[in-house]
């Protein structure tokens, strides 16, 4: 997943989809969902799993890509899983989407101030600092996270940890 930014060019040939799944909170359900993707040759670009609105339910957000027929199969097959309550393809809906990334980058005094400028531009935060390295926390949609990693790459990235996207449908925004 750390390589996401590099692979993006070739990966995004077919449209990206964000699929939200409300599911029973157990490992069997999560395994079935992941197994469905590997078993049927679908792809997962990112996946996040956490508690949903009610105890006992989990919200899984999957970003994937594929043509319309593949995405239709993915949503239908997900829906067939007994533990799955609801599957929503958020791609065609207004949505709010966020990903959090922690980026550890080489930051000797000579390049530190330039890095901090980039951090400001992306409204990111520095959450750890040592004589040689900085760890940056950034939140945004996947594109923004990709872009910030792209900008920091020239300084030498030590490690990246990304959560994968989480998303919800955007509510009514007022009439125009």
């Amino acid at each position, binding site marked *: 997943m750390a390589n996401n930014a590099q692979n993006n060019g070739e990966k995004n040939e077919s449209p990206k989809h964000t699929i939200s799944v409300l599911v029973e*909170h157990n490992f069997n359900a999560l395994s079935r969902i992941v197994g469905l993707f590997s078993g049927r040759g679908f792809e997962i670009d990112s996946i996040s799993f956490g508690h949903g609105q009610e105890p006992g339910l989990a919200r899984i957000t999957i970003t994937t890509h594929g043509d319309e027929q593949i995405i239709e199969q993915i949503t239908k097959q997900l829906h067939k899983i007994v533990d799955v*309550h609801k599957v929503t393809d958020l791609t065609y809906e207004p949505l709010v989407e966020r990903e959090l990334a922690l980026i550890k980058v080489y930051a000797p005094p000579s390049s530190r101030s330039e890095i901090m400028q980039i951090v400001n531009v992306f409204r990111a935060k520095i959450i750890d600092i040592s004589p040689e390295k900085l760890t940056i926390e950034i939140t945004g949609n996947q594109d923004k996270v990709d872009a910030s990693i792209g900008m920091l790459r020239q300084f030498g990235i030590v490690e990246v940890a990304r959560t994968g996207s989480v998303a919800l449908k955007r509510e009514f925004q007022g009439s125009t």
Partner: protein
Amino acid sequence: MKESTESQEVKTEQQAQNEAGSSREMAGHEIFVETLRDVGVDTIFGYPGGAVLDIYNTLYDETKINHILVRHEQAGTHAADGYARSTGKTGVVLATSGPGGTNTVTGIATASMDSIPLVVFTGQVPTDLIGNDAFQEADIVGITRPITKHSYLVKDVSNLEKVIHEAFHIANSGRPGPVVVDLPKDMIKQKAQFRGIDSVELPSYKPVTKGHETQIAKAANMISEAERPLFYVGGGVTLGDASKELTKLAEKYNIPVTTTLMGLGTFPESKSQSLGMLGMHGTWYANMATTECDVLVAIGARFDDRVTGRLDGFSPKSKKIHIDIDPACISKNVPVDIPIVGDVKNVLPTLEKYMRQPEVDEWWETLNKWQEEHPLEVPQKDGVIMPQYMIEKLSEATKGEAIVVADVGQHQMWAAQHYTFNYPRSMLSSGGLGTMGYGFPAAMGAAVGNPDREVLCITGDGGFQMTSYELATAVEYQLPIKIAIMNNGYLGMVRQWQELFYEKRYSHSTMKSANPDFVKMAESYGAVGLRATTPEEVDPMLEKAMKVDDRPVVMDFVVDEEANCYPMVPSGAALYEMIESDEE
């Protein structure tokens, strides 16, 4: 998180305590047997072992549930599958942990591919040993996850009753399929309240049954206006018990019907509307009808690659209507114009209500001409039993009324072509997975579930040897199965492909140098063994065989070694690009 089994389980434990006043305390193994009775189980196919000894101890005194001791868990699973296919009830398997569970895998995958309702109970090591590589431990829920509709690992004995009810409900509703329930040894020892549950509540599982009326009306209109309509009928009509509804509809409007392997028998083949089977070894006229029709109505069928051939050449002139209970089947392989999600048993009568008589006379002229010009061939050879002749003789001897269980290979396709199937749930075969070794144990299951019907297993010398050890079971339970071995000394279908596509290089496909003497083999188990090597010997052998009613009969038909099954759509070809015979 590892311990986070369904959080529902916590709730039910509380419920259980609340209701404790009206319920009885029992050990898990007693709850198990009691609940099986409650859900209507009358037969279990099983094999004991360490992890399930408590259950077997309870079964020792059980009078209502019939336990069939098989000789291998794979065969037990096929037998439960054959029982389910022939009766419509859910097949039940009981196996121990570890190897007991892994032996059921092929049977579960077979059932999964053909949507057969099974509940497979496996023993498991005690919960505190799970994950420790304990003796006879295998993660059977993990191993079977991709081939089950759902699975359970019971981690709280107070949920056992509810889990069993859910498992049976899931297995045999919507699009049916196998469910695995893994039972750790401590769960079947511990005690809990038995509550006598009578309903299942699964908020996330609500299969659609009723079709969308407007869609059905639209479909009816499309069929009514068609000039060359065709019904393409699959296993969904078998599973949905909609044979009557289908037959009524097709006869009333005189619409031709072709069935898949899984749909055989749902429309009586003796009726004039029947075109037999379509697909790789379908009839010439069924495949041409599929190619030439202008409205194709897929009813409980899933456009399998063995049916469609090359997709861009499949039914290119037709508008397509697809009726299926599983929305994921619709437009998976072939895009359709009118999808109808619903239970065929509900949809077909509604379709009938909205339909008008289409103009099909001209279409029937063409179809009749095709049937005359390109019939299925029954070749003759002096002094040699031809496979097609063998099947016709079997059809005759059983008056087309047997439950036919075919294994996998050439004999399966010949059986599909040449036996006249007039009844639903009377042709059982591993269609999706193509499991060699399925036939004979599945026939045992059919015989157990249908003591009043003739059960005929058509198998090959290769496939029979994969599960022939079950002769012991069939003899023990006095199952009068007629086993017809189409003995050509080869893995016939492999040989046929090697002949046609691999320059006759018969690499590892011959069995004849070390085939057993099937007659002696049968006799050694206490079954009846018979053999026919010439056409003249067939009738007398069949006559002898049909008289036996207290044990299995093995009939060794020594047939032509290198006969090929035609018509054949070569892999990668379109349905209309059939090879019709050797001469081409």
